[in-house]
C-alpha cells in the first residue's frame, strides 16, 4: 500500500508514478486524504490502462488499481 496522505500536489502523483515506474505492478493500492490528489492520480493511472475503484476508509480514500 502506498500512503500519500498529507502530501501536497504534485507529490501524490510523483510518488505513485515512481512506484509504477519501479515495479510496474498489476495491482496497487494508494491511500489518500485529499480528493484533488485522488482525482489527479486516478486520471493519470487510467491513462496507463489501470482500472480503478475508490473505497472510503474513514476520513481517507483508498484507490484500488488493477490492470
Amino acid at each position, binding site marked *: 500500500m502506498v500512503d500519500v496522505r498529507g*502530501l*501536497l500536489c*504534485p507529490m501524490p*502523483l*510523483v510518488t505513485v*508514478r515512481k512506484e509504477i515506474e519501479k515495479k510496474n505492478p498489476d495491482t496497487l493500492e494508494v491511500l489518500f486524504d485529499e480528493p484533488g490528489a485522488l482525482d489527479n492520480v486516478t486520471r*493519470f493511472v487510467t491513462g496507463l490502462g489501470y482500472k480503478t475503484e475508490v473505497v472510503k476508509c474513514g476520513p481517507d480514500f483508498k484507490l484500488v488499481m488493477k490492470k
Partner: protein
Amino acid sequence: MKKINWPIVLAGGLVGLAAVVLTALGNPANMGFCIACFLRDIAGATKMHSAAVVQYFRPEIVGLVLGAFIMSVASKEYRAKAGSSPATRFVLGAFVMIGALAFLGCPLRMMLRLAGGDLNALIALFGFAAGIAVGVVCLNKGFSLKRAYDVGKAEGSVLLVVLTGLFILSLAVPALFAFSEKGPGSMRAPALVALLIAVVVGAAAYKTRLCMAGGIRDGIMFKDFRLLFGFVAVFAIALIGNIVLGKFKLGFAGQPVAHSDHVWSFLGMALVGWGSVLLGGCPLRQLILAGAGNGDSAVAVLGMIVGAAFSHNFGLAGAAASADAAGGVGPKGRVAIIIGFIVFAVISAMNIQKQED
C-alpha cells in the same frame, strides 16, 4: 487532442472577469487581483512597513480565504493539517514575495498585466516558466517537504480568524490602521463588494484547484494540461474585458504599476516559479489551501506578509516607472533575488530524499 476541462476554464474565466470588474470598481489598473500586492498592502495597513502608497487592508485576501473555507466545509472536505516543514515554508513564502514585488505582481497579476497589453509581463512569464522548470527538476530528483498530519480543527482556521478579525477591526476602527491617501493603496473597489467577489472566486478556486504555477508544472511533469486551461482562461477573459472597456494598451512603456527592467523581472518571477513549485502551489493556491485548513500554507502566507514588509523596509521592491524615472529593481533588490536563489538551492538540496530501491 486533450479534452477541455470546463470547470477549471469557467473558474479561470471567473477570476479574469472578477479582476476586470474590481478594476472598473476602483482597484489599480491590471490589479483586480494581485496576491503579492494585496498581502503587501495588508502588511502596510498593519504598519509592518511604512511605504505610504501601498497601505490598505485588502478585503480580497480575506474573501479568497473565506471562500475556500466555506466551499471546503460545504464539500465536507475541510481538514485541518499541518507539520510539513513549516519554518522552511515560511522562508520560501518570504522569498517568493520578494521576487514577486521586484517584478510588481504575483503570477496572477502577471497574467492580468499581460491581458492589459503589458509586454513586460511576457518577459516575466518566461522567467516564471523557467523557475517552474527548475522546481520540476528538484521534484524529479526527490524533493519533498515531507507530509502534514491531522491537527485540531481550530489550528486549520487560524489564518482565516486572524484575517477576518483584523478586517472587521479595520472597518470598525480605521484609525488604528495606515491607509494610503495616494498611489495604488488608495485605489480600492468598495470593501464589501470586493469581499463578496473574492468569496465567490475563492470558492471556485478551491473547487477546481486553480493554480497559476500548477498548470505549467503539470504540463512539464505529466503532460497534464488541466490546470493550464484555467491559467489561459484568466488571461483570455481579462483580455476580452480590457478590450471591451477600452483599457487594453499594447507595449512595454507607460504601463500601470510596472517597469521595464526585463532581466530582473525575469529573475524575480523565476524565483516565484521555483518557490511556488517547492511550496506546492502559487501564492493564490497557498491562500486557498490555508482557507481549507492547511496550517503549512497559512505559515507560507505569513512568510509572504513578512517578505512584503522586508521588501519595503529594506528597499528591495521594484519601483514603478513614472514620467520622471524609468523605475526598476535597485541594487538591494537584485542582491535579495540572488540570495533568494541561493536559499532555494540550499532548501532544495537539503530536502531531496535519497531514492529507495
